[in-house]
């Protein structure tokens, strides 16, 4: 089962706190995006293992872009 982690708003990715293969828990701080000179954390949607990361630091993302995919058992 997979769960997508989407961008809740537009901004620029300035921090990525995990890598593919990491075990994560719901509400871990996964990434930080910056918009209007403000940093906003994005949280892991569910427990699982990071299957795929679609962005890197410096990327501009829009609302609903898939940032990462979490594999749940």
């Amino acid at each position, binding site marked *: 089962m997979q769960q997508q982690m989407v961008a*809740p*708003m*537009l901004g620029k990715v300035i921090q990525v706190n995990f890598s593919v293969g990491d075990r994560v828990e719901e*509400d871990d701080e996964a990434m930080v995006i910056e*918009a*209007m*000179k*403000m940093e*906003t*954390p994005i*949280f892991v949607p569910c427990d699982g293992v990071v299957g795929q990361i679609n962005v890197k630091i410096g990327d501009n993302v829009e*609302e609903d872009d898939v940032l990462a995919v979490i594999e749940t058992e």
Partner: protein
Amino acid sequence: MIEEFSSLIYTTGFLYLTPGMIFMWLIGFILIYLAIAKAYEPLLLLPIGFGIIVANLPLAGLMAPDTGLLWKFYEYGIHWEIIPPLIFLGLGALTDFGPLLARPSLIFLGAGAQIGVYIAFFSAHLLLGFSLQEAATIGIIGGADGPTTIFLASKLAPHMLGTCAVAAYSYMALVPIIMPPVMKILTTEKERKILMPKARKVGRLEKTLFPLVGVLVIVLLVPASAPLMSMFMVGNLFRECKVVERLNLAAQNELLNIVTIFLGLPVGATMNAQNFLRKDVIFIFVLGLFAFIASTGTGIIVAKGMNLLSKTKINPLLGAAGVSAVPMAARVVHKMGQKADKKNYLLMYAMGPNVAGVIGTVTAAGIFLTMLK
């Protein structure tokens, strides 16, 4: 020879210093300190602070009518209504109306915040005896819009221009401190957790038509707002039409930066000891703060009112973003929302009322001008 020497001494400014002037230098130094050390609106408060200092130097004549350098900046830049509208040209080019167009009902939050302006106006006139024109200028401080405050002051109460501008910019810098308590008192935890429904995507055609539609509507209704509103909208048109990128970028960058320089210096230069060292000034600062607080409050109250009338609830914190300190107020709203629920991302939604508030403040200023000129 002694005669030459002593007459030379008499040309120096030292002999003509007054305590008032030195006090004004102190004010200037404080503003410069706040700008540099605390990053309080440095783009404005730094030149304003400097303008204050040099305008309070005897014999320098920087504000001497017809001849003074800063007098000329003031006369031809501000009194002739050139600089504030040009600032709005730049601001329009910087502004994205997408979030407002995605959810147009937020426009009423921009209106709601202006009620605070009128409350402050009313209080200033009735409770503290300011004239209608002065009260209007003080009230518009609550609109959290520097150029509009300066524009209105230059037309209705030029002697208060510097003070009102300093108050406006100072409180804008203090928005993260002023607004949260008001927001906490007027909203419940549950209300702050309200998640906003997904915004619809707004197309390029709509965003291009908006400035045209907007300028027609507002300028027909309030012709006195024309200098500011028309420049704001043409700047926005430059941005959205995508075919004048050179003009758009110049408006957002070179133009805006240049006119900001020419705005700050003369504004500060109007603050000489006579204008500033009066008990009125304390009242202006107090009322200005009151105006900010009132506007935050009325914005939130209008939001709550809208919730009573509609099925889809909006997060009432968005009402506070009707105070047009862009984007600071939106940021503060976003942070408060995150505190209530860390998955609540209000920033882009808050930009809707934030930019609507700019239109609201210019409209309110235009109405004041129409009724009080």
